[in-house]
């Protein structure tokens, strides 16, 4: 297991750094959510960009007692990969309801302390329309006017004008606005209850446009079936935790309409 050189505690979560974290421009979040869109796209970016895990995120209160073994090496179930420019948070276990608010707020505070320029939250927008095929639409939400200007420039993505966002990304958005950190939420239309690698590929395409880095998605699409098979259990666990955090609210309109 990697040796910890620096440790920061925020809201009951410890960010244990194994290497100098630096000051990455982007922090991409791949927390398990609808269609595991964020999880799949984050994992694909980590593999494609060949990033190393530089931070382990641990909480003996809010996370189950787990180590993940990869190539014989024990790792933290929640970790941040980085190349100094792009940092990506992934997790092998879904975050349970009591831990969501402290974690979301800890992530934003950690990003603030590290001088991250933009937090990119990637999530799915459950839609039965996806079952009928066709390529998924992509929407954005932002924490501030500066990021709004930035998001409007991205081609192939439109503003989500109405709806309800539930879960860690909702808290991250609010905390980012509160702590003056830029947050862009990328929401891709996805299967509501199945892992959706095709939707994740759309999110990767958007990140490619944002960062001006060519990212190959062919492997993601070729291996879609394998990914779905591999993530079957995580999707089941995520469905259960989403239900507990009130994800059902997303499937009704908000009170005030335009």
């Amino acid at each position: 297991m990697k040796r910890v050189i620096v440790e920061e505690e925020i809201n009951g979560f410890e960010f244990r750094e194994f290497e100098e974290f630096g000051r990455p421009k982007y922090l991409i979040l791949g927390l398990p959510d609808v269609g595991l869109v964020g999880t799949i796209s984050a994992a694909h970016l980590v593999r494609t960009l060949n990033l190393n895990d530089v931070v382990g995120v641990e909480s003996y209160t809010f996370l189950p007692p787990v180590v993940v073994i990869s190539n014989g090496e024990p790792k933290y179930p929640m970790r941040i990969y980085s190349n100094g420019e792009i940092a990506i948070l992934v997790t092998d276990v879904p975050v349970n309801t009591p831990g969501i608010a402290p974690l979301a707020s800890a992530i934003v505070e950690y990003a603030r302390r590290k001088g991250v320029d933009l937090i990119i939250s990637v999530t799915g927008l459950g839609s039965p329309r996806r079952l009928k095929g066709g390529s998924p639409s992509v929407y954005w939400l932002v924490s501030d006017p500066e990021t709004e200007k930035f998001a409007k420039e991205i081609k192939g993505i439109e503003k989500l004008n109405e709806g309800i966002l539930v879960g860690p990304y909702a808290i991250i958005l609010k905390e980012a606005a509160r702590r003056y950190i830029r947050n862009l939420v990328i929401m891709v239309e996805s299967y509501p209850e199945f892992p959706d690698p095709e939707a994740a590929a759309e999110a990767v395409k958007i990140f490619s446009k944002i960062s001006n880095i060519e990212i190959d998605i062919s492997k993601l699409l070729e291996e879609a079936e394998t990914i779905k098979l591999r993530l079957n259990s995580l999707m089941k666990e995520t469905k259960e935790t989403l239900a507990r955090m009130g994800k059902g609210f997303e499937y009704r309109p908000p009170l005030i309409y335009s």
Partner: protein
Amino acid sequence: MSWDPFKIIEDMLRNMRKRMQETERLMDEMLQNFLGSERTYERFYEKAMETLKSGKEEPLASIYEEGEYVIIAVSVPGAKRETLDIKVFEDKVEIIASLDTRKVSRAWGYSYRHLTLREYRGLYPLPSRVDPSTARYEVKGDLVLIRAKKKY
């Protein structure tokens, strides 16, 4: 107003009771959250044990109503298509399929050494009764879409 030690003690006791009630409420809330998490983990464990012991995995399904139809979408990645067995009843749908062990082994990697996952098997209750004779299904990649007319 004269100095009344009994009133001071009474106020102190009232404040203490109020604080204790508040602490009790917070503790109760924390306990409920904790127990909720524990139960969730317990269910994850039970499901995993069920799969481990039986070698059967329940496929993920999404069931919804569309006008006079009930749509059942079942995700069966890694299934051998030719073994798909779908049975539509008035109030439930059953789906069974053999898994291609090479695909499972590729997906699970080293972890598959400890598993014998052979089959998909799922039984799903329907939100409305349907007429099984109207049921039609199509397979799109690893997705099975079943459509059956509601029975009135």
